[in-house]
């Protein structure tokens, strides 16, 4: 497992001092800075309501960024429209409603490649290798899949465009432990295939185990950052987030 302790040489995605929120005057994210190095798998954990999902949405242009700057390989992408970000190589998997239920699995994947249809066969093969289960379900409507399978379809869809950075919003939410393991190992193999990943997770311990590095968010601000494994042992993190349960 690659867990570099030093700063990564090249930055794939960075958000600096981002302030963002849905309603005017109510900031959910309050000056967050995160960086994802090329080829890195970075996690964001934090208590409920800390603004983790909002941060990812702000990076992806779904929530207006009021202050701060988001860059993709040094290029300013702050507040760019989602379809433009997809074209620029950012993939995003929302937490809920992340498949088109009335489309088949194959059509869901095709929609992921809407902007670049020529590579369809090649990309479908690539995604099929990562998520073998999707091959068997090609012609099934996505709405009839189980939660774990939907998550695979959603990730597969986001990977169709061959993104350089993938944003995942709580990929394990609502899944049984077995499926959670499955999802995390898929996330790891997507990362091993060369995609930089920024992942928000509520399942802190698993997230820290699988990530190269992680940020702990609290009340819309960065609280801690460091290599995943070391955070697990950091008493402050344990106190702030893992809390009582973790002491058990």
């Amino acid at each position, binding site marked *: 497992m690659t867990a570099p302790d030093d700063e990564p040489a090249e930055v794939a995605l960075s958000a600096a001092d981002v302030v963002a929120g849905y309603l005017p005057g109510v900031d959910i994210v309050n000056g967050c800075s995160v960086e994802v190095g090329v080829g890195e798998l970075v996690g964001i954990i934090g208590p409920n309501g800390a603004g983790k999902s909002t941060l990812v949405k702000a990076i992806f242009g779904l929530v207006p960024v009021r202050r701060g700057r988001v860059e993709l390989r040094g290029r300013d992408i702050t507040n760019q429209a989602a379809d433009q970000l*997809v074209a620029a190589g950012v993939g995003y998997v*929302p937490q809920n409603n*992340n498949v088109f239920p*009335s*489309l088949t699995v194959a059509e869901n994947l*095709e929609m992921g490649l*809407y902007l670049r249809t020529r590579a369809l066969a090649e990309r479908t093969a690539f995604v099929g290798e990562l998520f073998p289960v999707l091959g068997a379900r090609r012609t099934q409507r996505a709405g009839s899949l189980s939660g774990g399978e939907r998550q695979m379809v959603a990730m597969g869809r986001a990977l169709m465009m061959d993104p350089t950075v993938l944003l995942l919003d709580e990929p394990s939410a609502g899944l049984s432990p077995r499926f959670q393991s499955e999802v995390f190992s898929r996330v790891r193999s997507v990362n091993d295939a060369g995609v930089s990943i920024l992942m928000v997770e509520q399942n802190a311990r698993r997230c820290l185990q699988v990530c190269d590095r992680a940020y702990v968010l609290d009340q819309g601000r960065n609280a801690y950052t460091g290599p995943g494994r070391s955070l697990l042992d950091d008493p402050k993190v344990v106190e702030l987030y893992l809390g009582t349960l973790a002491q058990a």
Partner: protein
Amino acid sequence: MSRRVRRPFDRAALAAAGLVVAVVLCSAGVADAQETTTTAPAATAVGGTVKVEGKALEGVRIVVTDTANRTVGEVRTDSEGVWTVPVPRAGAYRITLDTKTLPAGVRLRDPDRRRLEVQVQGGRTRFVLFGLTRGDGGGDGSGTSVPGTGAGSGTGGARAGGLSLGDRLARAAVNGLLFGLIIAVTAIGLSLIFGTTGLVNFAHGELVAFGAVAAWFLNVRGLHIGPLAGPRLQLVLAALVAVALGGALGAGLDRGIWRPLRRRRTGRFQMMVISIGLSIAARQGLLIWFGSGSPKYRDYGLQRAWRFGPVAITPRDLAVIAISVVVLVGVAVMLRSTRLGKAMRAVADNPDLASSSGINVPRVILLVWVLGGALAAGGGVLQGSATSVNYLMGFNLLLLMFAGVILGGLGTAYGAMAGSIVVGLATELSAVFIKPELKTVAALAVLIGVLLVRPQGLLGSRERVA
């Protein structure tokens, strides 16, 4: 990147909408300049044309009486078969055709409809038609099948007497299929627009009437742009132009009205009320442009019916059925297997996710409007050639379109097709058992019944309602 793609399309949409306006204004000017055959001088009157199988009848006596049974006027038809009787004021009048003055061998299709009761509106000429046939023994029924919409015209149903129930059902089924297919063609747009934007578009009927009216001008008046006068277009050609104009109008409406409203995050109810306002305004615009007459197209007007067993159908109606089927299958295939079609379904499923997948959602919605406008206009031409052209024809179809869309399950295009055909069949089949003038009631009752029993529609899944 995608912005570069979008811009020229925007301009094209606006230019197209501009073209629609230009054509409308020009043809309107022409309509006024020429002697009109349909819009009589704006006096309160009743009038009509007495014809049998396309041939005008001269010297037929018509008597008009008022509600108190006083005779208001009495005329004989001229060499063109035309008659007009001015009436003192708006209200109900009874029009009687003196059958003794009909030439030998000509009789009323329905002897009960010798005397018609009509409501005349102030400043308008109410057209009254008597269904006549050459009674050469065969009693082969109507020369033209009329899948009317209960528009309140005097052309109720031609009830063929003496047919067995089975034969009448078979005929009604064919008419119902014809009518249902036309509704289906017009309703797809309504369904797709609802699916992708959540708009319950009350102004969709006016797109239908617009298509029919535009094609009528091109077909009967010819193309006039400014001082340039062109030839009158054959109906098929006129229909194609009308479909293109309908698509352009759809694009113009999306860009000009609905997209700005979506951007302002206007609520769904607000948008629905706005579409009602638009419907009122557009309907009155059509009235000013076209008048309140119900003329027919120049082509395929009167044809001898082909007989298939108990069923008689004109080549025109058969063509309408064939065209509708081809269009519906085409749209289904487009939605099923083209990239754009899948994108339309994706946007209908989840617009946010669609845009997160790189789909340019506003552009897909624009194309949905183009498709919806074009289909509505095309459906209008089909309906116009199966019956006649009237500025209210779209509004009269609207509730039936809603019925079709809801029956099929809101927002699913295939459902809208199936639901519309059910509505068409219910409408015409009911006319076998109840008075034809009440057949729209039957269709609406079916709609309400289905909503109560299966609110998710016939094909929709239960989850969609929640």
